[in-house]
């Protein structure tokens, strides 16, 4: 029932609305109170008041009040609209959409409601609904170009290219004259239309259209790039060549242009006959510009033999003469080819011994330059012997020490020294050394950041935060760590979390990885504003790119890395719920009576501590509601150490938050499939586990972990406590064939063992399987595991994995000590094997 107000209150209500829009919440509340004093059940006023309360972080009160408002005035679109806004603010989009639709039913032509509905539909990718809403909005206000464009965008995103193009065309036809060149919105809209035509697959027409509009488009680069692309696609090589050459004249360092130019010329790097032509092509570009790098560096990728040697010699001398510090990183991708690696090593060693010529190809003599050249060469060699494909840490150390003798205050040299320690496994010394490097230049943010990372690798979480704090805004709520969260400094959060994993501080680790997942949620949330903003600004192409990027947001490597770790912690929790209680893990060893006593005691202590903590918090809350020094308020973190996360009753279900996006968006990540299998097997979702197994099989059929999991899967399904639905077992029977149903698993494992007798990881997996099949083989396995350390190419990481395996088998401390001693004798620097 609409509730009309007397005119005085009507004026008040209008001012209430105005106050809300102007964010003058206090005044707004006052006006609302004034109306409610006379008309306590006025729904619209209550709804507006709820909206203001919600803006003041009183969400619960807002919801209660808004429900009351709806009760008082079911037929008010304002109440329903506010109800939707409240749902939106807590990110429950489905409910919000429902409420908006109710509001629309009462007031079908309200642009505000329509707009809010449309934005939400786009956010949840309900394109059919989005088209409808956008159409209505366009019909309400056809004068606004953005309404037309928006409708086209809706069709485009829904995959209906023809309709999208039609909308844009129809609008263009209503224009009496072509808009002036300065009209950015028009320029963008035409280019947008062009990309729609191209995406519909009609390149021919896209090219024709582009030629018509190119004169009026303000984004020159994009227009040129599109044109070149279309020409190449249509096979009009000569014109395409010209187009790419034009682009290269504008930017001759952009590699993609060179790649495409090669294609237009029909040259192939794998064809020996073409190599000479390619070489000439790049030489012509190199000659055009003395300082151009791309044209000189690219040929090193495809040249071979003597031609490569001459070219790389020239390239290296040039860079080393100039003392370019990034020479090695720029070159190292060539090391994939062992021949090239050998040639480069020989050449640079030659420069080092051959001081007569001072390395300069032209024989230039200049005292200063020669010293620079020598240092560059030594620095190059130090990095060379430190690099994984050409590692010889002893030599690397020699070179870096020589450099440090010359220039002990160099940040770069000290950093490389630290890096060498890191590769030797000595994270302790690495951290000390890089801290020394940092102290040499405290205003260098790069070395500061590196230093924090090395400290985290050495599990010095506090020191690292202290280091980071030199460049963070420390007056933020939560101090430096709070700022790192606000700034979404993901590398730090991940490294911090991984350091906690190594220290078995599961709560804090999980806390950090959850923070990463939260950041991705924020990114997803962030696009909301752009559904309207981009249209207002007319930047449609960038907007479309963004929407598409958001759809596969979580395939980002950072997400995967944090997610794999988080899932692993949840798996541990599922195996051992006691993990959530740090003091209890040690109690396993005590006998039951003593354990009970100890547990009781621990519980009492915990309660005491909790009480003290709560009191402290209450006192702090009374003082200020988590106010930062800069006056900004923020909700207080009630679980700073992640204890609550650990106490989850359903760790496997909680793991799905991390697992699902990974399996959906990064299906080619082997680690994701491996942890996915573990989770689904534990949840007894056998088909899902099998899917992970099959995907892993496709990625790397000989992966050792896959072997372990295949055997365990066969075991699991052969001794189920209750039978699976017949259809499910039929699918498993048909799809899961290795090892076969009646296979002798031990023999199967032995075959695997023999096949990979020289690979540390495979052997470890095979021994683990042998143990799982028959745990009487434990001592044999322990012996064999130790022997792996004798293999010539076993790495520190693999040796560490072996140690972890011993813990899994619950081997005696002696056995572990033995293993550690043996590993330590092989990697004398490595800190992980020290006791």
């Amino acid at each position, binding site marked *: 029932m609409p509730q009309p107000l007397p005119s005085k209150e009507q004026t008040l*209500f*209008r001012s209430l*609305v105005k106050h*809300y*829009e*102007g*964010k003058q919440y206090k005044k707004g509340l006052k006006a609302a109170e004034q109306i409610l004093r006379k008309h306590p059940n006025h729904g*619209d006023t209550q709804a*507006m008041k709820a*909206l203001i309360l919600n803006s003041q972080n009183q969400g619960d009160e807002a919801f209660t009040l808004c429900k009351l408002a709806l009760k008082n005035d079911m037929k008010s*679109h*304002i109440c329903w*609209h*506010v109800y939707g806004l409240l749902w*939106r603010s807590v990110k429950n989009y489905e409910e919000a959409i429902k409420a908006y639709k109710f*509001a629309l039913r009462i007031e079908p032509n*309200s*642009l*505000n*409601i329509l*707009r*809010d509905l449309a934005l939400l539909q786009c956010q949840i990718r309900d394109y059919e609904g989005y088209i409808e809403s956008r159409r209505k909005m366009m*019909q309400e206000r*056809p*004068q*606004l*170009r*953005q309404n037309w464009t928006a409708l086209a965008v809706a069709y485009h995103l829904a995959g209906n290219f023809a309709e999208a193009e*039609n*909308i844009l065309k*129809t*609008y263009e*036809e*209503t*224009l*009496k*004259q072509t*808009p002036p060149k300065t*009209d*950015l*919105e028009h320029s963008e809209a035409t280019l947008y239309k062009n990309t729609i035509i191209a995406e519909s697959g009609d390149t021919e027409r896209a090219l024709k259209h582009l030629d018509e509009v190119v004169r009026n488009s303000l984004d020159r680069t994009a227009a040129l790039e599109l044109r070149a692309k279309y020409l190449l696609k249509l096979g009009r090589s000569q014109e395409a060549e010209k187009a790419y050459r034009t682009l290269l004249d504008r930017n001759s360092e952009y590699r993609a242009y060179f790649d495409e130019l090669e294609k237009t010329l029909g040259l192939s790097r794998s064809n020996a006959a073409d190599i000479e032509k390619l070489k000439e092509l790049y030489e012509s570009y190199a000659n055009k510009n003395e300082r151009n790098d791309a044209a000189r560096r690219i040929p090193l990728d495809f040249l071979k033999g003597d031609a490569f040697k001459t070219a790389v010699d020239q390239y290296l001398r040039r860079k080393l003469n100039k003392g370019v510090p990034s020479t090695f990183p720029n070159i190292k991708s060539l090391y994939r080819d062992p021949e090239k690696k050998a040639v480069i090593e020989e050449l640079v060693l030659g420069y080092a011994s051959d001081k007569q010529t001072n390395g300069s190809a032209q024989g230039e003599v200049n005292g200063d330059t020669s010293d620079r050249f020598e240092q560059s060469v030594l620095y190059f060699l130090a990095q060379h012997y430190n690099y994984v494909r050409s590692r010889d840490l002893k030599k690397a150390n020699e070179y870096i020490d020589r450099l440090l003798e010359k220039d002990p205050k160099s940040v770069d040299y000290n950093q490389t020294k630290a890096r060498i320690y890191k590769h030797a496994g000595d994270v302790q010394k690495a951290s000390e050394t890089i801290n020394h490097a940092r102290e040499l230049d405290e205003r260098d943010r790069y070395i500061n950041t590196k230093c924090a990372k090395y400290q985290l690798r050495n599990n010095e979480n506090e020191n690292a935060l202290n280091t980071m704090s030199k460049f963070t805004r420390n007056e933020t709520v939560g101090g430096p760590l709070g700022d790192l969260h606000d700034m979404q400094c993901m590398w730090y959060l991940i490294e911090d979390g991984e350091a906690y994993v190594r220290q078995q501080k599961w709560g804090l680790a999980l806390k950090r990885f959850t923070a990463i997942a939260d950041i991705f949620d924020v990114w997803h949330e962030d696009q*909301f*504003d752009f559904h309207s*903003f981009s249209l*207002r*600004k*007319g930047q449609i192409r960038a907007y479309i790119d963004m929407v598409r990027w958001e759809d596969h947001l979580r395939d980002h490597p950072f997400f995967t890395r944090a997610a794999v770790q988080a899932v692993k912690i949840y798996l541990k929790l599922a195996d051992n719920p006691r993990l959530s209680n740090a003091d209890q893990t040690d109690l396993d060893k005590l006998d039951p009576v003593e354990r009970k006593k100890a547990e009781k005691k621990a519980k009492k202590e915990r309660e005491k501590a909790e009480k003290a903590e709560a009191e402290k918090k209450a006192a702090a809350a009374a003082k200020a509601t988590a106010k930062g020094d800069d006056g900004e308020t923020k909700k207080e973190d009630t679980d700073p150490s992640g204890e609550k996360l650990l106490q989850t009753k359903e760790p496997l279900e909680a793991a799905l938050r991390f697992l699902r996006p990974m399996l959906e968006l990064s299906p080619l990540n082997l680690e994701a499939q491996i942890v996915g299998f573990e989770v689904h097997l534990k949840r007894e*979702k*056998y*088909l*899902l586990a*099998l*899917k992970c197994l*099959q995907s892993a099989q496709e990625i790397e059929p000989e992966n050792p972990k896959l072997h372990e999991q295949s055997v365990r899967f066969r075991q699991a399904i052969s001794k189920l406590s209750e039978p699976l639905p017949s*259809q*499910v077992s*039929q*699918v498993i029977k*048909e*799809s899961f064939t290795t090892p076969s149903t009646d296979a002798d698993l031990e023999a199967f494992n032995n075959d695997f063992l023999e096949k990979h007798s020289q690979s540390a990881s495979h052997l470890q997996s095979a021994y683990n399987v042998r143990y799982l099949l028959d745990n009487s083989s434990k001592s044999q396995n322990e012996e064999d595991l130790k022997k792996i350390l004798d293999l010539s190419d076993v790495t520190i990481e693999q040796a560490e994995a072996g140690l972890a395996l011993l813990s899994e088998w619950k081997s005696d401390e002696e056995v572990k000590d033995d293993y550690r001693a043996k590993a330590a004798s092989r990697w004398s620097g490595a800190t992980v094997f020290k006791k």
Partner: protein
Amino acid sequence: MAEPQPSSISEGAADPHAPTGTAEDRKAAAALESLDAQEDGGEKKDVDNKALDKAMKGLNVKDKKGEEKKIVKVEAADVALLVAELELSKQKATELLRGNDGDAVKAMAAFVTT
């Protein structure tokens, strides 16, 4: 992108517009809106309203090409099985079954191997 915004317009996560009730409010909101639009050069003087109206009418929703879906009978029990075992939404499970002639074993095998 550099033109300054009027101070009354906050970009990005602005609070949503208030739902306006009375005719006057609507007028005020419309005025505010058009102000906004002029700032962004949205509404132009040379817009031909007649042409727009005509254009809009010409846009009438075209007959949707009814995609000829194969009529496949899908058992509710099979859908429930797929939802439980593969943790798909009901809609996806139905689609998957439809794509596999309504055969649950075939559908699940296809899901597992791809």
